[in-house]
Structures are given as structure tokens and as C-alpha cells.
């Protein structure tokens, strides 16, 4: 029963098919979507990217990127998930059978991200505990790679486990699988209701505390002083689009999945603007907190802010521990910082794993608990087997770099080109959004998706591709980068194609009753249907997409 296969009859006993779960309302959806978007990147990536790309002047390309790419892509994901009511493979299949592989590609990317992302949360969890005693002493860098991670000199795949990472990692996976097993409303929504306000409160206290540190205002001065000359440099525009793109959790299936649990009449654009601006609001707050703290670090060391400004793992696990050890009430600063990392990371990890669970649920017609356990436990085992080892750091570094640069960017590029030039789906998706949304989208939305984003994503992809091919990655051996970098991203595409060829279970969500009428506004659809009949049935989407699924869907009872 492939997309082009013969017609099959669904089993008569369809009552066994689990109902699609729903959010209780848009408030919890917005909280969960913000929880997904606000992750480690907001805290440790944005501040440095802004600082390095014009400081205060960065706000201009950043806002332009948010409004012309970030939020439009968010709306695209919402439209696909909400209209076709499925995880990425199912939603894409319902849009057009040939698009199913794109959905599986997104699921594969989520799998790769999930297995290493959990490890960083485990590190943050341990550093939360270390903060009470400032266990790293005066040498945070040496402690992180030496005593804590016990990083091996060998670059290979080893199985020499580090208990202080292994144990918290098992706990992280236990929490994530338990939350996901509880389901969309009882698990994801309720955890967001608890974690997100907690994260905001903790982070606000952290920022206020950081602002009172000596040298904080020097840090903020470095962060916000605009370098207007940089605005003419294309690299800062690329950096702004890249930051917005990676920060918003768009284009790799999360928002499609979350939007698929929304009620029919949800205000998609109204909700999307809140999610988009809340994500940016949080990272701006992170920029203030991080640079206030870095200002203190610079003042304490008697150096300029430029000498202490770092991003990523270096910021979180080396610079911040150094600050915590020196700052007054450093324990509180550490607890708040690493606690924030844990909560921001957990809510994002939950959304990433949910994409995989939802895809398997849809494809095989499994119930929530069964899917969460049968999918979640093997993912956890792979994560536990590969990363909490003395060789895990290099593996994490390579997989993270490649899945972001050549996984997420590539699938996003393929998806936007497919939706615009390939299937011509944008007008229909815009109609769908406008049918239930408070802020109506004009043709500019189609231009942003079909014109701006492919150009920007294409540029980022080619630029990174040429750099990686000519320079390799981080001085690591070619075989290592070849297998876990290039090999992994190519394998994701091949596996996605193969998965799209596996027949859908007769109990799967693909056999749900015609989704077309219930999903789109009934009145709009009825009018459209009448108009189309007079025009000979042209709908703006290919027949299979316009009918919501594949053959037979146009003959509804």
C-alpha cells in the first residue's frame, strides 16, 4: 500500500484505532511551542552571535529575519500540521504522497538531535549540583574536559563509560519518556505549564543578579554598542537569518507535530506571533544576563570583554563556572543558570522526541504508552551507549555540527521549495491559515516562503558546504567526520526514502476518515468545493493533496 499502490480496504474494526490527542486549548499549545523554541541555543548561542555581528546594530537584521523568515516558516509548519493533522510523515503524505520522505527526513533529524541533546542536559544537571560546592575549583576548563568528562586523547568510538554523565543521562531519559508516555495533554502540556514559568522566573532572577555584578554594565556596553558599518556586510545578515532559523525550532517537524494536536478553529497566526516574539524576548534577556556576567568576568580578570566572550559549551561549562566561582552569591547564580539550562533543554528535548513518537504512532496505529516506550527506550539506549563515554564529546561535536548545517538547513530548503515551486501548495495553505486566524496573511507570506527563505537557506547551505569540504571539521580525522558527519547526514536521506516506501498499517492514522472536511473551515471548504466543481475541480493543490489524502478521499459519505 504505497502511495502508488493498489486500493486496500481498511479493517471494519476501526474502533481499535487510537483517537488523535488534542491540546486542551491554545494557551497550553503556545506554552509548549515556546518551550520547544526556547532551548540551549537561546541561552548560549544568541548572545555571542549578536555580539560578534554588530552588537546593537544586529537587532535590525535580526528583526528583519524574524519577520521575513522565522515567523513565516513557523506559520508554514503550523499550516501543514493543522491542516493535515499528522506527524511530519503523515501530514506530508496527506499533502502529497511524494512528500512523505521529507517528513521521515525530519523525523530522522529529530532522532539524531535527541540522542546528543539529552547528554548536554545531563551535563547541565550535574553542574547544577556542582554549583553548590563550585566543584570545578579555579580551573573550570580543566575540570570539564578532565575530571568531569574524562575526555580521551583518542578520536574514535569508545565504550568507556563515565558514571557521572551516565547516571544523570539515564535520569533525563527516564523523565522524558515518562512525560511523553503520559501523552500530549497530561504529559507535554502539563510539564510545559510547570517548567516554562519556572524557567522564566529563574532566568529573570539570574539576569537581575547578573546586572548587580561589578563590570556588568561594561559587558552590556560591549553587547549593545552598535557597529553600523557591519550592516553592509552580508555575513551579519546570514548570521541573523541563521540565528532566527535555528532558534525557532522550525522546519524539522516539531511545529508540524504540535500544530496537529490543535483544535480546528485555532488562531494560528495569533499564536505564532506570540511564540516567535516570546522566543526572541527570551534570547534578548539571555543576551543581557550572559553579557552582564561576562562583563564581571572581564573586570575580575582585568581584560576586555572581547577576550572572555564565548558561546556554546565553552560559555556554559567553562566561562560560567569561572564566573560562579568568583561572583558574590555565586552558588545562587550557578543554580539559576544551570537550572535554566536543564528546564530549557528538557522542554525542547520533549518536543524533539515527540516528533519521532508521533510519527511511529501515526504509521503503525499504536497507542501512546506503547509508542512512547517502544520508541523512546531504544532512542535512550542509543544515546546512553554512544555519548556518556570518554569519546562522546567529539562525537557530539561532529553530529551536532553536521545535523544542523546539512540536516536541518537542507530539509528546510527542500521543504520550502517543494511547498512553493514543487506542489504549489502555498496559496491553499495560506487560505487554510486565514480561515481561522486573527492576523490574515497576504501574498507577501508566499514571497517570504517561496522567495526569501530558499535564497537564504541555499546560501547558508552552499557556504557551509564549501567551508567543510575545503577545511574539514575542527581538525578531527577525516574518517571520523566522514562516518559521523557526512555519512550520518546522507544516511538520514536514504533512510527517509526507504521509510516512505514501507506500507502504512491498516490501523494507522492514514486510514482515518477523510480529513479534508473536518480540518479546514467547513463553510470555506463547502464554498470552495462548489466553486471547484464549476471550474472542473481545480483546487490549487494536486488532487491527492486537495482531497486531504490519497485516492478515495474525494468520495466521502
Amino acid at each position, binding site marked *: 500500500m504505497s502511495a502508488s499502490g*493498489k486500493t486496500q480496504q481498511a479493517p471494519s474494526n476501526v474502533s481499535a484505532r487510537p483517537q488523535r490527542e488534542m491540546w486542551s486549548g491554545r494557551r497550553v499549545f503556545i506554552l509548549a511551542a515556546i518551550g520547544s523554541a526556547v532551548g540551549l541555543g537561546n541561552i548560549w548561542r544568541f548572545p555571542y552571535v549578536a555580539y560578534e555581528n554588530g552588537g*546593537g*546594530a544586529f537587532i535590525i537584521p535580526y528583526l528583519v529575519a524574524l519577520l521575513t523568515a522565522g515567523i513565516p516558516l513557523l506559520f508554514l509548519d503550523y499550516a501543514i500540521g493543522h491542516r493535515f493533522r499528522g506527524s511530519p510523515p503523515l501530514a506530508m503524505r496527506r499533502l502529497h504522497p511524494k512528500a512523505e520522505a521529507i517528513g521521515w527526513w525530519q523525523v530522522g533529524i529529530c532522532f539524531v538531535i535527541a540522542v546528543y541533546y539529552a547528554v548536554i542536559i545531563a551535563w547541565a544537571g550535574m553542574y547544577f549540583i556542582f554549583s553548590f560546592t563550585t566543584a570545578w575549583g579555579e580551573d573550570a576548563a580543566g575540570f570539564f574536559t578532565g575530571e568531569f568528562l574524562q575526555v580521551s586523547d583518542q578520536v574514535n568510538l569508545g565504550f568507556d563509560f563515565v558514571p557521572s554523565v551516565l547516571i544523570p543521562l539515564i535520569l533525563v531519559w527516564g523523565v522524558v519518556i515518562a512525560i511523553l508516555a503520559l501523552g500530549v495533554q497530561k504529559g507535554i502540556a502539563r510539564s510545559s505549564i510547570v517548567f516554562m514559568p519556572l524557567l522564566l522566573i529563574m532566568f529573570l532572577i539570574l539576569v537581575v543578579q547578573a546586572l548587580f555584578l561589578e563590570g556588568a554594565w561594561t559587558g552590556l556596553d560591549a553587547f549593545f*554598542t*552598535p557597529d553600523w558599518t557591519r550592516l553592509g556586510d552580508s555575513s551579519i545578515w546570514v548570521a541573523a537569518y541563521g540565528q532566527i532559523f535555528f532558534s525557532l525550532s522550525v522546519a524539522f517537524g516539531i511545529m508540524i507535530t504540535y500544530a496537529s494536536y490543535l483544535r*480546528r478553529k485555532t488562531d494560528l497566526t495569533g499564536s505564532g506571533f506570540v511564540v516567535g516574539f*516570546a522566543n526572541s*524576548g527570551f534570547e534578548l534577556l539571555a543576551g543581557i544576563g550572559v553579557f552582564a556576567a561576562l562583563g564581571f568576568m572581564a573586570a575580575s580578570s582585568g581584560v576586555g570583554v572581547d577576550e572572555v566572550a564565548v558561546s556554546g559549551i565553552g560559555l556554559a561549562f567553562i566561562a560560567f563556572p569561572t564566573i560562579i566561582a568568583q561572583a558574590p552569591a555565586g552558588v545562587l547564580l550557578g543554580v539559576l543558570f544551570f537550572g535554566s539550562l536543564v528546564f530549557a533543554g528538557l522542554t525542547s528535548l520533549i518536543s524533539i522526541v515527540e516528533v519521532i513518537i508521533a510519527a511511529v504512532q501515526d504509521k503503525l496505529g499504536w497507542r501512546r504508552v506503547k509508542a512512547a516506550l517502544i520508541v523512546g527506550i531504544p532512542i535512550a539506549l542509543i544515546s546512553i551507549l554512544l555519548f556518556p563515554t570518554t569519546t562522546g564529546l567529539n562525537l557530539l561535536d561532529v553530529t551536532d555540527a553536521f545535523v544542523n548545517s546539512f540536516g536541518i538547513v537542507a530539509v528546510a530548503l527542500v521543504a520550502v521549495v517543494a511547498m512553493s515551486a514543487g506542489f504549489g501548495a502555498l496559496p491553499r495553505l495560506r487560505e487554510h491559515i486565514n480561515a481561522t486566524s486573527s492576523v490574515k496573511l497576504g501574498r507577501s507570506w508566499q514571497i517570504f516562503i517561496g522567495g526569501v527563505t530558499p535564497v537564504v537557506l541555499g546560501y547558508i547551505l552552499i557556504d557551509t558546504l564549501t567551508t567543510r569540504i575545503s577545511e574539514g571539521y575542527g581538525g578531527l580525522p577525516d574518517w571520523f567526520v566522514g562516518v559521523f558527519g557526512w555519512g550520518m547526514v546522507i544516511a538520514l536521506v536514504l533512510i527517509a526514502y526507504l521509510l516512505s516506501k514501507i506500507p502504512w498499517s491498516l490501523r494507522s492514522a492514514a486510514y482515518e*476518515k477523510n480529513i479534508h472536511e473536518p480540518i479546514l473551515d467547513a463553510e470555506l471548504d463547502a464554498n470552495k468545493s462548489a466553486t471547484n466543481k464549476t471550474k472542473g475541480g481545480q483546487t490549487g493543490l494536486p488532487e491527492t493533496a486537495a482531497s486531504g489524502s490519497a485516492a478515495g478521499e474525494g*468520495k466521502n459519505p
Partner: protein
Amino acid sequence: MSTSAIVMMIIALLAVWGGLGLALLNLKRNPEAIDDEEADAVLHDGASVSPLR
């Protein structure tokens, strides 16, 4: 902090947090619509299932 840094900080905060405020205001002015329960029931009843090709 230099004047230009203070000005840019205020502009950035107003633009981003102001944007969030406006988005929340818009949401408040457009209360959540209640779905037709019957339509949802039809969606899930599974009584008549169209096969895929």
C-alpha cells in the same frame, strides 16, 4: 554604558518585548473559538474509513 549602547538596548527591548506585548494583546482581543464538538466526534468516530491507494 555609552549613550549609543543605552539607546540600542532600549530599542531592542521595545521592539522585541513590545512585539510580544502586541501579540499577546491581539490574542486577548480574539478569544479562543470553540470547536463544533459534533465535527470533532465525526473526525474520530472512524465509522467510515476511506482506503488509501
